[in-house]
């Protein structure tokens, strides 16, 4: 009896064994997350505005573009995820180590500008969505800015990730809103599976903008870092890839229903919109107050979600790439650049929305331009890195994948160049 301390204490032992079995089942939880979160942040305020516009202006006719866009997104994101798992390094570190200081600096500069613009868009989304519910922006915007700061500084990574995963569920509100709009499903099917494109400047601009919104440079940095942070092992990569693929599909399904909702209502009524808030307001008389409220709620959720992720993640990549101390576990005097940059992103992002009379649309346009300029560079760097045998070993891009990836990159670069040309001209 005295020999065995475990005697009579069978419960704790089985508890522990059970826990380790759970741990193996929970492998899923230890790998899944980054892909789905990244994909959903992609449907942020700017994304929702673009999809709403696509639906309002072109009805169901551009739905088919979401299919090739999904394939391109999966192609790019899979490569990013694979690099994260194999090298255990973030994309900004890899760029620094392979391409040196100059490339890194300009990439980071463009990333900061682009994401500052995105952050402004998110706070504008917060202001717009809550104004629909009667909350003035001078309350909503500072409150969300403080919330974002607190969530990141006070919360632990695991809790924050859970909150983010839960936030992903609320994107369902767009799918419900899509059904509430009572679309003509036959027309929807035609728009989805039969590609048609009017070769007019507005239609081409819309397609290019859809691509640009869906495949954004920051996603590659965020996804790769999130995967590294999770410590996904090479053996578990198939699960991680599944996470990424499912995430990409979910993103575009949500996008699909946003286009659908606006196509079935605003387009039919012949309306035009500029922002996502316009869309939510326009839905009210056409699809009822529930669809409108769901739309506004989805926008709020997406904006807060993205506002929590973008400024912080940008700060991380910049500091890591330039070799500055980073991390919310560091004191302010240990990591001065880190805190200064993070505070700047939040204060400017929230502050610009509060300033009356500021040309918000111009700022968002500027950020879209920065995104557009950045994307080709990021994609080319990624392809060079993912094809590098010394770095990736047997996980480098194979010949066929390389070919498809370079071709896709070529198309994306041409489309982005076209978008830049069109936006700068118009």
């Amino acid at each position, binding site marked *: 009896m005295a020999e065995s301390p475990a005697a009579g*204490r069978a419960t704790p032992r089985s508890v*522990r064994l059970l826990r*380790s079995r759970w741990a193996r089942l929970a492998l899923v939880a230890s790998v899944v997350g980054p892909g789905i979160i990244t994909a959903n942040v992609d449907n942020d305020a700017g994304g929702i505005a673009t999809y709403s516009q696509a639906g309002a202006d072109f009805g169901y006719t551009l739905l088919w573009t979401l299919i090739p866009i999904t394939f391109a997104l999966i192609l790019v994101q899979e490569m990013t995820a694979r690099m994260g798992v194999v090298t255990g390094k973030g994309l900004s570190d890899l760029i620094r180590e392979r391409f040196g200081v100059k490339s890194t600096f300009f990439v980071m500069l463009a990333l900061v500008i682009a994401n500052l613009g995105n952050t402004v868009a998110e706070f504008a989304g917060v202001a717009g969505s809550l104004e629909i519910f009667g909350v003035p922006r001078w309350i909503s915007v500072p409150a969300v800015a403080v919330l974002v700061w607190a969530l990141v500084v006070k919360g632990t990574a695991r809790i924050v990730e859970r909150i983010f995963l839960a936030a992903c569920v609320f994107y369902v509100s767009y799918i419900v809103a899509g059904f509430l709009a009572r679309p003509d499903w036959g027309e929807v099917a035609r728009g989805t599976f039969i590609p048609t494109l009017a070769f007019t400047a507005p239609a081409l601009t819309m397609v290019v903008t859809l691509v640009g919104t869906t495949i954004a440079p920051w996603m590659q940095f965020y996804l790769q870092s999130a995967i590294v942070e999770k410590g996904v092992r090479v053996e578990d990569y198939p699960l991680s890839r599944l996470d990424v693929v499912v995430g990409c599909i979910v993103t575009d399904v949500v996008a699909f229903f946003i286009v659908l909702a606006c196509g079935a209502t605003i387009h039919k009524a012949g309306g035009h919109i500029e922002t996502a808030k316009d869309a939510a307001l326009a839905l009210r008389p056409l699809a009822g107050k529930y669809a409108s409220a769901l739309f506004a709620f989805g926008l709020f959720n997406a904006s807060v979600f993205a506002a929590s992720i973008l400024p912080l993640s940008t700060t991380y990549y910049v500091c890591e790439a330039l*070799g500055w101390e980073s991390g919310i576990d560091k004191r302010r005097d240990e990591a001065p650049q880190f805190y200064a940059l993070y505070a700047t992103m939040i204060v400017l992002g929230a502050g610009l929305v509060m300033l009356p009379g500021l040309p918000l649309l111009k700022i968002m346009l500027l950020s879209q331009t920065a995104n557009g300029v950045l994307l080709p560079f990021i994609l080319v760097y990624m392809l060079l890195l993912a094809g590098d045998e010394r770095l990736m070993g047997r996980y480098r891009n194979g010949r066929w994948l390389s070919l498809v990836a370079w071709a896709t990159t070529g198309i994306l670069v041409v489309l982005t160049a076209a978008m830049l040309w069109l936006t700068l001209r118009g």
Partner: protein
Amino acid sequence: MPAQVNENGPAAPASQPPREGNFLFLSDLLGLPVRGPAGERLGTLVDLLADAAGAYPRVKAMRVRTRRGGEVKRVEWEDVDGWDARRLRLKRGAQALRPLQLLSSEIPLAQDVLDRQIVDTDDAKVERVNDLHLLLARGELRVAHVDVGFRGLVRRMGWQPLVDALVRSLKPGAPYLKTEKLVSWKHVQPLSAGSPRVRLDLSRAALSEIHPADLAEILEDLDRRERAVLFRELPVEAAADALEEVQPELQRELLHALEPEKAADVLEEMQADDAADLLADLPGDESAELLAEMEPSEAREVERLLTYDEDSAGGMMNPEFLRLSPELTATQALEQVRAQAEHIAHLHDAFVLGPGGKLAGVLSLRDIIVARPESRVLGLMHDHPAPLRPDDRARKVAELAAKYNLFSLPVEDEAGKLLGVVTVDDVLEKVLHG
């Protein structure tokens, strides 16, 4: 430590060949056109290969890219005639270009050190290398420091003249102009996977002098590959100490980086309760494999701890503690302390065992030291105010420790047999980090 460097010393490559005893930066040399004695263009300098042996590695050769995007060749340093800001001249022409080759003791500086993470063993920090500071003396070029400062970044951007002039006109006394953040190479631990062993051996001593908590932070700050390189090179004791300090997710990753035999050695060296926590988080077959590799006696101890829930007193307790018997005198007890100290992490309290391994009483090291040499342990010891049961929760343990101001608490089974001792550091960790 950031070193003070003469403002005119580094950078600014002179237009005539550099003088003896001069400092220069790697970034000044990289990209220089390489020309033959007759001025014919042979290629571009892309890397320097330095011999890792010795405190300050000597540059032995360089890599030259022959045409744009073309083949890379090796040129021995002896073939270098001299250089200035615009070109590097060789003593002989195309015959100096040899096939690419890397000796096992050589570090390619641009490829494996520049822009990469290193550990500064003096400040116990992870840094990213912005530039390398080279010293030309007696015809030899050696690596003296790595530059981890902001000015190094500016120099790499090619903006140093501009930024310097700007700062000088705004604030002539700015610290930016006078301070280079340089780390002496003797404190630098490069971590590229191909680092020659000779370098790692050299700095191993420096690494094991870093406090385990700092070492844990360094491991957390490094990228995964660099982390594995560093961890594999740590001596077993340092590895065990660091492993106790890092976060649980990282513990698993680090243990995976080791061969099973070394992993088992590290586990043996860890405190048994920490080792048990770590093994409990591993998949069953992996922990069984590691337990089989461990010394049987150590493995048994850990296995016994594995049977308790990790958030209970049983899961937190350490089966190794200071044991005394009641009939010893204070002098003998002190000898016992010395004899047992090697295996025991905390010596604050001694536990007196009676017949059947039952806890008879406790006394502190202080009690033993201040007592008259001939007094007996039996007379010095007192009852412990709060003995624990193995299934007591961490919360309760913390409350008892706070209430009675205890550093360590004994854990007994139903029969009163002493199983192990929980110390407050373990309790704190459980209560704070769950």
